[in-house]
């Protein structure tokens, strides 16, 4: 119970500081927008090409943007040694991870929802009839990115060459999430859209496995 109430308090702090500075959301939106627009200008894809390559491109943009977004997650806790203050204050260190990963998922999901109409217009794909199902895929995919991403952000914040460390550790690990999310998105952009429950199940299982690992071993990642 204390873990959940601590998580709620910390989530409030994460959301308040982000909406006060808007640093992460602005950077991520601009990055995804640049990738999506540049690719569209470079290839000028037809409708069938968009359906074929669009989902992969979209998820690659989300993935790279997420690695940018996750970088400062624990790094900014080092500025004034606030991570130590949090560790002293909470009864369960998992609350620190839980709050950060919920905040990261929320910010990433919000960015993706904002970018989806831009993608639909530039790549001439129809998303209106499948918006709800696409949102479900985006949410599970974002969670799949944010859970290991938050853990690796804690590790890389204490390492040398930390800016390079996070993408190097994270991107290979997220290959299964990239494949599952891309396949599930592609199936929804098809002329006969279908919600691929096998890929959704895979994403949900990935999220559960990594969340359990974080719950079991997260405390050690915060130690000095």
């Amino acid at each position, binding site marked *: 119970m204390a873990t959940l109430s*601590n998580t709620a308090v*910390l989530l409030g702090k994460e959301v308040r500081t982000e909406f006060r500075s808007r640093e992460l959301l602005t950077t991520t939106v601009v990055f995804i927008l640049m990738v999506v627009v540049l690719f569209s200008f470079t290839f000028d894809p037809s409708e069938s090409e968009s359906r074929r390559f669009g989902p992969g491109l979209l998820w690659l943009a989300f993935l790279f943007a997420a690695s940018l977004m996750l970088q400062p997650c624990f790094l900014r806790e080092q500025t004034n040694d606030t991570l130590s*203050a949090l560790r002293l*204050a909470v009864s369960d260190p998992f609350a620190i991870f839980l709050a950060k990963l919920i905040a990261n998922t929320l910010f990433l999901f919000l960015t993706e929802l904002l970018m989806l109409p831009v993608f639909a217009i530039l790549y001439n794909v129809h998303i209106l009839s499948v918006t709800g199902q696409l949102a479900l895929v985006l949410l599970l995919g974002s969670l799949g990115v944010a859970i290991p991403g938050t853990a690796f952000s804690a590790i890389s914040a204490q390492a040398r060459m930390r800016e390079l460390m996070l993408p190097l550790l994270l991107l290979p690990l997220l290959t299964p999430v990239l494949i599952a999310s891309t396949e599930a998105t592609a199936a929804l952009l098809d002329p006969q859209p279908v919600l691929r429950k096998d890929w959704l199940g895979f994403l949900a299982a990935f999220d559960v496995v990594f969340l359990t690992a974080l719950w079991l071993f997260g405390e050690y990642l915060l130690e000095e």
Partner: protein
Amino acid sequence: MTPRAFSPTGIRFEKIEKRYGGLHAVRRVTLDIAAGECVALAGRNGSGKTTLLRIAASLVRPTAGSVTFLHDGAAGSAKTIRTGFVAHATMVYDELTAEENLLLFARLQGVEGATARVEKLLGEVGLLERRRSLVRTFSRGMRQRVAIARALLNEPAVLLLDEPATGLDPQGVSWLAGALRAMKGQGRTMVMSLHGESEISALASRGIRLEAGSVVADTQSGANLKSILTFAEG
């Protein structure tokens, strides 16, 4: 300052050792600190003062040995006994106001009547009028006041202070000395790392000098205490 709402607590460091790879930060340190004692840890940079304090606060796991907090005849740790920690860094968020910072940590620690407690502490550290200002707009001295208020939120029985006067001007040091004197008067156990003599070191009833991670002097007598603190300079 707030009236006493805690039980006197002593600290026992038993054969504490901390190694970072081949580097010995702390070497088999054994110390008994009595409840209500005010101890100054002195020593040159890298002598192990900060590591010892962070081990006591449960922020760093020792390679060997243990730290026990003795409280009402029972034993505990910094996780179970109310402990306040003031570090070299302020440990507060620049992007939050003084009030938001204190409320955040009060709620995390489950402090009852958090809003009233925060308001009281802000008054005690002289920041009530600036409570809605972002901490990043504060001077170093004001940030240190927020840091001290944060450490006192849960009425700690033990205060661990790592160079608490860092960055403070003489006026700030005087304020801090006054605040610590009041806390000492309330019977809180205090362990503080210091550099040289100051108004703050004058509060210490015991001085311990560390060199290369080992205790090389431990005294309670006035003249020796002064020499321990003076030696630490530079």
